[in-house]
């Protein structure tokens, strides 16, 4: 009977192995070949970049108003995108406003992604009673429309940025948990998970090595598609006075305060909405491209 392993010492160091590209670099390569992803990714990158580096762009003070130059139209010298109802520079306010709006779009989804994945994988892998408790709780949240839920939680917690993030996180945990649970349940029944179990690995290792890696990408793709929803909901909360408070620059809040100017200068009043539209379009298209790029089977 031959014994594996005895000849390892004799065979010396292993020969150079041809390595295939790793999964993530493969995804990156596919994204770079996708024209839609390139164009809209660049757009989104520019919007986020501008928001981050807003103080260094030489913009006017977004909070400095002037009673004499209120609601100036687009193209006014010194105010490229005009001014708002308090005479503040729109360009500066839109770029500064992106900071809060994007933060409110991304952070709740990120938190919900982390919490929802843990809950969903737990429910999907363990099954039984654990699954029933987690998923039925999630179902309770599903009984309310997400807008209503966000408003209700925000109203209960009180207005403010932190509370907005908390309420939006709570809104997004149920759908992400549900997606994570269904993906995990289907992966759990695949034979490589069986094979990993009979190799003697602990349940935790099986989940870490064999389940998590294969469920994270579909959950992630789903979560990215939620960022635009989150941004719009955040804007909605601010619009209702439940999120960010004036004079803070935030797209939803700007939309609200400019509401009264709609008959005087409709273009200015629409600008924050245009920003919300463009950003969520970019996010959605990028999420679609990501879904395609993450698909391993060609």
């Amino acid at each position, binding site marked *: 009977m*031959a014994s594996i392993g005895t000849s390892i010492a004799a065979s010396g160091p292993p020969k150079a192995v041809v390595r295939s590209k790793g999964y993530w670099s493969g995804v990156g390569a596919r994204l770079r070949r996708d024209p839609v992803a390139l164009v809209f990714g660049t757009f989104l990158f520019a919007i986020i970049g501008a928001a981050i580096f807003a103080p260094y762009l030489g913009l006017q003070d977004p909070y400095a108003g002037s009673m004499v130059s209120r609601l100036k139209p687009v193209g006014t010298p010194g105010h490229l995108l005009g001014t708002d109802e308090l005479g503040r520079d729109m360009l500066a306010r839109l770029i500064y406003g992106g900071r809060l709006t994007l933060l409110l779009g991304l952070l709740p989804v990120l938190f919900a992604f982390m919490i929802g994945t843990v809950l969903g994988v737990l429910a999907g892998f363990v099954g039984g009673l654990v699954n029933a408790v987690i998923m039925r709780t999630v179902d309770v949240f599903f009984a309310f429309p997400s807008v209503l839920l966000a408003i209700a939680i925000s109203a209960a917690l009180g207005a403010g940025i932190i509370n907005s993030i908390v309420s939006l996180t709570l809104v997004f945990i149920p759908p992400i948990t549900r997606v994570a649970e269904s993906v995990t349940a289907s992966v759990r029944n695949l034979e490589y998970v069986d094979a990993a179990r009979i*190799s003697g690995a602990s349940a935790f290792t099986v989940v870490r090595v064999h389940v998590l890696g294969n469920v994270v990408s579909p959950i992630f793709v789903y979560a990215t598609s939620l960022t635009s929803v989150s941004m719009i909901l955040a804007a909605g909360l601010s619009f209702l006075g439940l999120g960010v408070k004036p004079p803070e620059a935030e797209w939803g809040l700007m939309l609200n305060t400019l509401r009264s100017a709609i008959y005087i200068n409709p273009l200015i009043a629409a600008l924050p909405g245009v920003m919300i539209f463009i950003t969520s379009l970019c996010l959605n298209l990028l999420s679609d491209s990501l879904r395609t790029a993450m698909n391993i089977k060609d």
Partner: protein
Amino acid sequence: MADTVVDPRPDRGGPAQPLVIAKSLKRHFTISKGLFGMKASAVRAVDDVSFTVEKGETLGIVGESGCGKSTTARILVGLTPIDSGDLIFDGEQLGGDLTLKDLWAGVQMVFQDSYASLNPRLTIEDTIAFGPRMRGTSTDDARALAHELLTRVGLAPERFAGRYPHELSGGQRQRVNIARSLAIRPRLVILDEAVSALDKSVEAQVLNLLTDLKAEFGLTYVFISHDLNVVRYISDRIMVMYLGEVVEIGPVEKIWQRRAHPYTAALFAAMPSMDPDDRTEVPPLAGDPPNPIDPPSGCRFHTRCAFAEPMCGTARPTAMPVAGDADHMAACHMLDPASGHSRAAARIAELAA
């Protein structure tokens, strides 16, 4: 020295001790219907199944869908728990002296779907090295072992170790699965339709490989397939299952010559003839295999059997030796002179001839 890389589980009972003794294995799955799961019915996937697997042999299991052969396979590797019965591996009883972890050190499995049984996000070498690493082998040693196993199954490690499953063909993936199953030095390998999804020309290569590996590593196989030609080629003994029960078991050539159970006979007769001048004219059986949910009473085959008599629907047959040969057993009332089946005497005489 390097022998510490992987320690095979030592032989305990000696050559005469069967590697596996399965006694009255039972596994029923309950299906709940209705709003609150009130109406529950049971799939009798494996119902009172007993057999042994001798050391160094290949036991082939055949049968149609719903016969319980895959559930039996999963029971043998401890992936499906049993409701009742005993599973004894080399003299140690599962649940008694033998834990699941011990069982997994001695039994491994190769699955049918070569793609679903490989983690798409792990490279080939990581997949093969996973088992040994879980058992405390160092990363470098496990990787070296993976390379050596890849060589043994005919895949050059320099070309294949760093690849991902989707970059391989079906035959290559199945070789990887075989290498993975051998990585923790099992003594028993369950091959569940392991070559069924492969093209015929590739299937022959893999069968040759399995034969070589068996001799090289002193393995015992349980080989499950729906293809009787393949089972005959690779097995020493075969076990025929029908709706969760064993209907016939015995050495392959003995069964090939004397198909004692009517179902075995029908299964063999259903094989395409391969002779254009002597094609099959009458189908050996009518209809589909019954649903294993609430299977027929008595002899489960009586609803499709040409020789069924009223008593077959009430009494469950016990396994009887065929032509007085205790190696070859079949569960049919016609083999039991005391059963009261009108053909019993004639049938016993016919098989003894």
